[in-house]
Structures are given as structure tokens and as C-alpha cells.
């Protein structure tokens, strides 16, 4: 999952970027509204966290412009202004949730994962596909109710497949959503991690849920 953080306070931006990366997200960040808007429009973002008080362009303007340009991914407002009129203004502009500063990171993370899950059309925080269950709140993965140990990137890959079950996902799309702009993008890595994931989920190779479609990408099939 790739998220965008637009926050002018450098330390806070750095903290958020680090923590989100540690919890398995690809993160792009911007320190002002204009750059934030550019990232939001140009990159395949899955969710944006936008501060309201930004230089150059206010957070509200950024959100309005993103929505006018047809961007439908969830947006969380991060604001120090906690009055209801301001919250309503932000939510009316097109944001989906708000969080007032200062905040506990876990709270922000919970809301981010809830919004991503909701935007993919899942009602509960635990995503299921056959024997596989993925808890977006705790980032735990279970197979037949037995916990599975996954690395950060493996989790990210599985999470992306779990919210796009049955859809054809191109390698570029996977790259775009799993890597931020600062990462070294190597398409072979996807193949390697997918291979590891297959082995961890189905060591005996009795099922092949990850289908490779030559020239088109991958599909995570519906399991019964």
C-alpha cells in the first residue's frame, strides 16, 4: 500500500514516514501543498494523510483539487485545529476522516488501515480468502487459524493481493503501490517475494492461488 503524507513540519513528517514504512507501507511525502498535490495527482496513491495548515496551498485546497481531478482514494486530515467548524470544512471538502494533533501513531495507523480496507470494499478489518485471514489492525496473517510469520514486504504484497482478490494486477501496478518514489525498483524482487509467499502459504504446493498471467501480470484467485 502506498500512502502520501503532506506535512510541513519536517520532524513530524520524518517520524510519520519512518513509522509507516516500518509498518509495511510505501510512503511518499511532501512538505507543502503544491508538491503534495503533484504527488497526489501523479502517483498511484492508496491513501493520503494531509495536514490542513500548509504553506503555498492549504490542505483544504489540496483535498478539493484532488477530488475535482477525480482522485477517490481515502484522505485523512491531520490538523491542529480541533474546532468542529474546521473539521466539517475539511470533511465537506472531500476528506474521509480527521485526526487532531497531537495523536498516538497507532490511532492514525488504525484509521489508515480501516480506510484502505473500506475503500477496497471490505466491511471488516479481517480480510479472508479461503483459509487465509489477514488482520489489517494487527498485521497478523493466519492460515487455517495458525499464525504465519511474514516479512514486511511479504505482508505488503499479500495485503495488496487480499484487497484485490480476483483482479488482474500488472507488475507495474504492484511496483507502484508497494514501492515509494525513493525506493530502488527492481521488478525481479516481486517474483522472488511472490515465490516465498507461495511457499509459506502452501508448502506442499497443492493450491496455486497466485496465478501468473503471461504479459499481463498476476491474479490472486478466490479460494474456497
Amino acid at each position, binding site marked *: 500500500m502506498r500512502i502520501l503524507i503532506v506535512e510541513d513540519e519536517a520532524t513530524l513528517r520524518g517520524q510519520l514516514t519512518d513509522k509507516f514504512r516500518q509498518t509495511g507501507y510505501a510512503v511518499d511525502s511532501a512538505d507543502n501543498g503544491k508538491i503534495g498535490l503533484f504527488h497526489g495527482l501523479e502517483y498511484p496513491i492508496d491513501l493520503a494523510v494531509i495536514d490542513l495548515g500548509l504553506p503555498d496551498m492549504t490542505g483544504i485546497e489540496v483535498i478539493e483539487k484532488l477530488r475535482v481531478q477525480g482522485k477517490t482514494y481515502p484522505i485523512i486530515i491531520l490538523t491542529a485545529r480541533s474546532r*468542529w467548524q474546521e473539521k466539517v470544512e475539511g470533511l465537506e471538502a472531500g476528506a474521509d476522516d480527521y485526526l487532531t494533533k*497531537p495523536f498516538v501513531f497507532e490511532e492514525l495507523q488504525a484509521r489508515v488501515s480501516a480506510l484502505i480496507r473500506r475503500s477496497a470494499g471490505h466491511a471488516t478489518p479481517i480480510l479472508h480468502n479461503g483459509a487465509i485471514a489477514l488482520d489489517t489492525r494487527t498485521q497478523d496473517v493466519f492460515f487455517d487459524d495458525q499464525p504465519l510469520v511474514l516479512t514486511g514486504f511479504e505482508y505488503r504484497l499479500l495485503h495488496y493481493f487480499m484487497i484485490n482478490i480476483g483482479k488482474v494486477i500488472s507488475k507495474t501496478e504492484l511496483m507502484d503501490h508497494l514501492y515509494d518514489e525513493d525506493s530502488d525498483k527492481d521488478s525481479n524482487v516481486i517474483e522472488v517475494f511472490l515465490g516465498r509467499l507461495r511457499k509459506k502459504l502452501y508448502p506442499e504446493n497443492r493450491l496455486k492461488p497466485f496465478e501468473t498471467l503471461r504479459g499481463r501480470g498476476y491474479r490472486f484467485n478466490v479460494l474456497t
Partner: protein
Amino acid sequence: MRNRLLIAATFTLIAFLGLAGMALDRAFIYSAKAAIRHQLRTQVHALLQVFEIADDGSLIIPDPMPERDLTRLNSKLYAVILNNRGEILWRSESSVGIELNQLETAERGKENFSRVGEGFHYSFGVEWGIGEDRHVDLTWTMIDTSDYYRDTISLYRRELVLWLGMAALLLLVMQAVILRWGLKPLGAVTRELDLIEHAKQDKILGKYPWEIAQLSHRINLFIENERRNLTRYRDTLGDLAHSLKTPLAVIKGITDNKNRPDLKNIDEVVDRMNKIIEYQLNRAVSSQLSVMHRAVDCEEAMRKLHASIKKVYVDKCIDSTWEIEPGAVFHGNESDLFEFLGNIMDNAFKWGRSRILFVCRSDGVAGKGYKGLIIEIHDDGPGIARAERAAVLERGVRADQQTPGQGIGLAVVREIVQRYDGILTIETSHLGGALIRTRFPAARL
């Protein structure tokens, strides 16, 4: 104001017309007396022309008399001739049987005119020659006791009162009409202020005469200034809070670390600092009560907040219903209404399980034409136990007295309700959860 002007004008008018009446009355009496004096003098002169004195000093009485009334009994016109000792030498036939009092002699060539009882006495002193070298001093007196004078005066007074009364009435009616016409613009200004208070318009728009235009212009400036100041306070405090809270968020980012228990104390202090800022900011911002209250449409505010909060709690799939009386208004600051409603609606979404009911209606008791307001928020959540209700309402008088983890939402709500002299109660809703009922009194104007 109109009544005051009318009363003042009426008293002035009465005083003025009273004085004018008195002056006219005196002038008329003076001229009536002058006319009687003139008439009596003419009659004395007529007698002087016809009377003669014989050489032995006796009076030769003319026949006929120049004035017929002098020969008619009880004609109320009498003539008397006195010598210089005051003895009656002659009296007219008309005075037979009448007692003539206070007869006085007049000096030679002088005349006296006086009112005696109901009548008038006119006396004229004459030196009358007898033969060639003798003369006597005689006083010729004419007495008029007729009702003419009294009748004339009373008729005049009746007429005077009638006409002055009619003039007063006419003037009063005219005055009332002029006042009404003159004060009409003030009435229009009052109506406009009423509209401003009912949020139907932003400022005084009408075109008024110069004197009132000055006033309305200043009222507009005052309203504008008041609103600008309020926005400025709010922005400044918002900026202050913003500039404090972002660094707090940074500190929180460092201290909120499960692997560093040594930072727990700092983390708690940061939480407390944040709550103090939040609470005091809310108090400061909403303390700036506008003198010129505007009426805020409750339905619009509730719908806006509902749409926003529902978006945040979309996962809960709560069924929220409305009972909003159209036109119900909150007399106060829009921001206060948003803060108040936002907090209680957010609580309802937070605690409600599947159903929420919003009720907003005017309070039945009307004061000065402005109705109070009742707002009820029902939910089907766990509710608040009867024993805890007072404590929940008392909580949060000061943010730093709160235990960690308690929101300041209800404290803010309570502050706002108190400031508007409202009553906030927690009850059990028919939906099974809490019912937060607020009753705002009619606007104080």
C-alpha cells in the same frame, strides 16, 4: 419614544394654549372696560349739554332726558350730580328706590372710572359758572349696573375655550401625524435590526434620512467590527493552538514508544498539555460572545455535522433519524452551536450501537417573541448510569483535573450551555441508551 414625544408635546401645547387664553382674556376685559368707560363718558357729556343752573344755584332739569334709560325705573343706568361736599344734588328717575353706595366726588376737570360691585362708576368733576362771577364744583356721575359686561365676558370666554380647544385638538392630531411620519425611518431601522438578529440579513440596508443614516452607518460599522474581531480572535487563537500542537505532535511521536517506558511521564505531560490547550482554546474562543447575536439555523448546522460525522463512523452503519422543527434557530454564535452539536453528535455516534435520534424544536414558552430551543440526542448505546450522571456533567471544569483518556467534549458542551444560560441533562432514552437534552432559554435582548 413616540409616546414620550407626544406627551411632552401635549404638555407644551396645553401650557402654551393656557397662557395664550389668559392673555386674550385679559386683553378682552381691558377693551370691554374701555368701551364701557367711553360709553359712560359720552352719556355724562350728553347730560352736561342739556343741564343748566339757574342764577339761584338750583338745577334746571331738562325734559326730555338725553338718555331714555335715565327716566325708566330700574333700567340699571343711573345718573347722579354731587356737589363738592359729596351731597346728592340730583339723581335720575331710574335710580328711585335704589341705594347708591360709594359715590365719590371728582376733582375739577378729572375723571374717575371704577368698578363698584357688579357695576361701573364714571365720575367727572366740572366747574360750573353761575352768573358772571360765581361758580360751583359739581361731580357728574354715571352708574351702569347692567349685565352687559358680565354677559359679554362670559360669552367671549365660552367662545375662546371652544376655539382654543379645537385648535389644541387639531394641533395634537397634526403632531401625532408628524411624529408618526418623522419617526417612520426609526421604525424601519428597528425592523431591520430585528431581521439581523433573526439572521435574515447581515447589516442595515435601507436608505434613511441623513440623521438616521449616520446612526445606521455606525451600527453597521459596529456589527462589522464585532464580527471581524470575533473572526480575528478565533484565527489568532487557532494559529496559536496550531503552532503549539504541531511541536506537541512531534514530542508525542518520540515519547509514544512502548520500548521506552522511561518516556512515559513525558508522554503523559504532553497529553495534559494538549488537553489544557484544547480546553482553554475552546473556552477563549467561545467566550467572545457577540453583542449582536445572530440566529443560526439549527437544521443546516445539524445536517452539515451529521453528514461529516457519519462519514467518519460509516463502518458502524448507524441508522440516524431526525425530528427537526423547520425554522428552529439558535440565538448565538454559529461556532458555539457547531462545537456544542459536534461534540454531542460525535458522542452519540461513538456510543450508539445501531440507532440515533436527533430532535430539535422550539421551546413552547415564548419570551419577547423569541422562542427558546430544545435539542435532544438519543442513542441506543450503553447509556450513562443514573449515579454517574452528575459526575459526568461536573467533570472537566478544568482540563488539568481530568483523568487521562477522558475527552473534553462534554466539558466543552457544558461550558457552552452554561454560557447561554441553558440547562443540560442526561436521561435514559426510549432507544435504550443515553439521552442528552439541552434547553436553551429564549434569547436575551
